[in-house]
């Protein structure tokens, strides 16, 4: 009882911190001064923009919406004029809206960054942990799925739908309207200064929250899967890779004046890897830049096939990857929401391989363009990049990928959209030692495995006919094996012979050979 109260308190604290966090967006004033403008623009652009923005300089706005609207109006007016006069070289292509709005923010939030960081992010984290740590304390280790289907949050009830809408909203702001969330980025400025020496962008904010989500919900996984070493190790692994490789190391690289780089991100998930600015960045950053470039290419041509041959795609998708890391921790409460139908499987195959083709073609064109000195395709590849970035990078991976957790499960992106998953999957399906072995005739067709498979694989379909599960999409999370009440499933790496058997035989009946 005592513990239950504490847990409720933790949830209360978390929700209060979340509420405050959201209110921050509506706090403080926005006033751009000449000084501030100078800080965020280049000297020549400053000279141009100062007179143009005269009407709003020194003017106080009460919301970021109003401010950024006026800013864009006057800024846009200048550019439109240049375009009408066909003065292309005078158009300012840089987008200063986010930086200017952030600089313009004044008052409560800007003056209390550290305090508010503590009251929102830190307190929210503490509250969440207070709620999570005592979980299942008085229960023996085991499967903790009681009441999942009755939960409004976990079962597409009102709470789940509201949460989904909220997450989608956040992603839309993050990708397309970062100027509305400048107050959030102010909070993490101190942290960003500490790590990289610079102010926080919306992406630093995102990285911080993302990492925290993986860490806190990773702790939840430790509680939920207490006694299950596979799940515990796997979770520790994604927590480690997110914190070090995806969050700390890239920022420290920036501090050292090197390009921001996540050493575990692999093309084509890292779809900008071969873009000219990235390649130039590598080539202009000395030996460490060279290391990034060569390591990245080795991962693509050797790392992926070799590791996947020996261990299946799980080595990446559920042990290393950041998207997978979030899905396996923060997304775990929603894993059963994936669609298991044959239809969904068909859609999946077309979509995910379609994205792979898109990514490969785009990258090839980019490389050809690079070597032809931008003569062959000119600005064409840029348009392609924009479309890919918009459709796949932002809308699919972000908005749908995470925003849809409470609606379609935690692996929508990994299953339907991730081109790297498609590549890993092809290797896993055709040349790998990994499979999920079915234990003879022990399956009782209960359906726990299929229900909790986040990739929407109908595991039972195979298990009940005594067939090993060899599927391109399986990320090897091992949850099907964990939840199986009859010990039927085992993730294994083993010889390729006997891995795929088309006409399996269910052990136990000697009268007939069964055509499953």
């Amino acid at each position, binding site marked *: 009882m005592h513990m239950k109260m504490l847990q409720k308190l933790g949830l209360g604290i978390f929700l209060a911190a979340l509420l405050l966090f959201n209110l921050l967006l509506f706090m403080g004033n926005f006033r751009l001064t000449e000084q501030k403008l100078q800080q965020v623009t280049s000297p020549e652009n400053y000279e141009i923009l100062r007179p143009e923005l005269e009407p709003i300089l020194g003017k106080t706005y009460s919301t970021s919406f109003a401010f950024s609207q006026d800013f864009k109006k006057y800024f846009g007016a200048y550019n439109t004029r240049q375009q009408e006069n066909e003065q292309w070289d005078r158009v300012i292509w840089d987008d200063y809206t986010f930086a200017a709005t952030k600089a313009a923010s004044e008052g409560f939030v800007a003056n209390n960054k550290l305090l508010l960081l503590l009251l929102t992010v830190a307190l929210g984290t503490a509250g969440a942990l207070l709620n999570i740590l005592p979980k299942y304390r008085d229960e023996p280790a085991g499967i903790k799925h009681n009441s999942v289907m009755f939960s409004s949050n976990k079962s597409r009830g009102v709470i789940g739908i509201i949460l989904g809408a909220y997450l989608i909203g956040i992603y839309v702001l993050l990708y397309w309207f970062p100027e509305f969330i400048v107050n959030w980025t102010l909070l993490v400025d101190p942290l960003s200064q500490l790590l990289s020496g610079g102010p926080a962008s919306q992406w630093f904010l995102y990285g911080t929250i993302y990492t925290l989500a993986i860490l806190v919900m990773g702790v939840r996984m430790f509680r939920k899967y207490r006694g299950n070493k*596979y799940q515990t190790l796997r979770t520790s692994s994604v927590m480690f890779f997110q914190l070090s490789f995806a969050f700390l190391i890239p920022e420290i690289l920036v501090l050292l004046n090197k390009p921001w780089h996540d050493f575990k991100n692999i093309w084509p998930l890292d779809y900008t890897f071969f873009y000219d600015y990235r390649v130039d960045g590598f080539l202009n950053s000395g030996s460490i830049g060279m290391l990034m470039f060569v390591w990245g290419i080795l991962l693509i041509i050797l790392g992926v096939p070799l590791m996947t041959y020996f261990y299946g795609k799980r080595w990446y998708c559920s042990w290393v990857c950041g998207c997978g890391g979030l899905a396996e921790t923060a997304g775990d409460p929603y894993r059963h929401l994936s669609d298991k139908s044959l239809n969904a499987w068909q859609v999946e195959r077309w979509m995910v391989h379609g994205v792979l083709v898109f990514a490969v073609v785009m990258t090839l064109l980019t490389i050809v363009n690079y070597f032809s000195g931008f003569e062959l395709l000119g600005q064409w590849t840029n348009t392609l990049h924009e479309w890919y970035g918009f459709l796949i990078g932002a809308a699919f991976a972000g908005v749908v990928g995470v925003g849809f957790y409470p609606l379609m499960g935690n692996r929508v992106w990994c299953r339907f959209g991730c081109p790297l998953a498609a590549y890993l999957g092809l290797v896993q399906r055709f040349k790998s030692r990994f499979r999920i072995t079915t234990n003879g005739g*022990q399956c009782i067709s209960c*359906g726990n495995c299929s229900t909790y498979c986040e990739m929407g694989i109908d595991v039972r379909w195979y298990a009940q006919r005594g067939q090993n599960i060899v599927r391109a999409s399986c990320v090897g999370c091992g949850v099907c094996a964990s939840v199986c009440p009859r010990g039927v499933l085992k*993730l294994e790496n083993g010889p390729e012979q006997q891995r795929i058997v088309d006409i399996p035989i269910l*052990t136990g009946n000697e009268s007939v050979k069964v055509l499953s």
Partner: protein
Amino acid sequence: MIEAKPIGDFCINSRGRRIVIIGNGIAGVTCARQLRKRDSAAQITIISGETEHFFSRTALMYIYMGHMKYAHIKPYEDWFWEKNRLNLVHDWVTHIDFEQKQLQLQQQEPIAYDILILALGSKSNKFGWPGQELKGVQGLYSYQDLESMEANTQSCARAVVVGGGLIGIEMAEMLRSRNIPVTFLVREQEFWDNVLPQEEAKLVGRHIREHHIDLRLGAELDKILDDGTGKVKAIVTKDGEEIPCQFVGLAVGVSPNIDLLRNTALEVNKGILVDEHFATNIPDVFAIGDCVEYRTPPPQRRPVEQVWYTGRMHGETLAHNLAHQPVPYKPGPWFNSAKFLDIEYQTYGQVPSTWEKPTGSFYWEHPDGRKCFRALFDEEKRTLLGINAFGMRLRHEFFDEALRNGTTVEQVLEQLPTANFDPEFYDKLYPSILQAFNQQFGTSLQPRKKKEKKGILSIFGL
């Protein structure tokens, strides 16, 4: 293969024959699916009054516990039946006319058949206790039982479960998942000790208590008391103790569901009597699954077997018999599994609750008291007779082969690394099992694992 008789003598084998199956459980559905694969012309109809579609009975508990919804426990998507031309009829059969080869249904038009397959399943036992018909008193077998359990436990301050078997412990677990206090009456001196040896029974008993279930061993139900409105208000044990409760789960076994067949020409005893081909005494009428009683049980088998796996194997075998040459039912070594709350249980071969010489036993228990391993073997020939495993997973294929080949207990123990089916990274249990065996029998067995090519060259099959 095994001796066979020509199919013409066995059943009607005309093209487009009408095969009607009563019962859409694992037995009936397996039979229908396998028949469809072997006879594409037959008209196959499956009738059931319980639900329109096949679902996994073994998973009913998970609906109540909120792990799954009804849709999740259906092993096939709803389009599957039409695609495979398996005609589904959702209705109760009220009468079978064996002369006219026709079935009367409760709601729909009568159905005629050429071949009839009875796969009627079981029903919960009730032993005539006073008050057993009160509201709030029920067994758990059908989907309707699950619905009434949901309704009966809406406001329940305490529940009593009667009967220490597999369904009893499932009911207790279900109720605990809703935080309902449970008193669990078990007649035996230890949980399920008519099936489990003492140590295993005690292990499960401890775990039941660990889940805050009030386990009463050696306790029997005497009567159930009415609260005056037709609902249960308490039970009284044989010792005279009165336990107030709003729900009573009766889980004292199941028996073949053959009420439909009483006083007909079909021969029944405890179940529908069948020969080794699943033929009844009436031509073109067959029976499979829980509702069956073997006239001559296969070696080491009991006459009535009411588990999922036997139902499935009956279905497989009968489908073969109706489509090819009939072969007798020949199950391999016995296997079964269950889960007692959080502890998984697997058994292979024969492990009765007690044994006599020349049967010897080896028992190992993990210090945490939640895992154990038992092997029974022939003390003279040393051959393995059966094993029980709690809290660990073992490979069915390995033991199936070992039991069929008369492998010695020593050989089996040495190969435990191969037999192990626990998830990767789990603590290896076999070293301490082997050590215990060596100590007990003065042997010096070493774990052996089949060598397997690994290394980089294996990519090229080298």
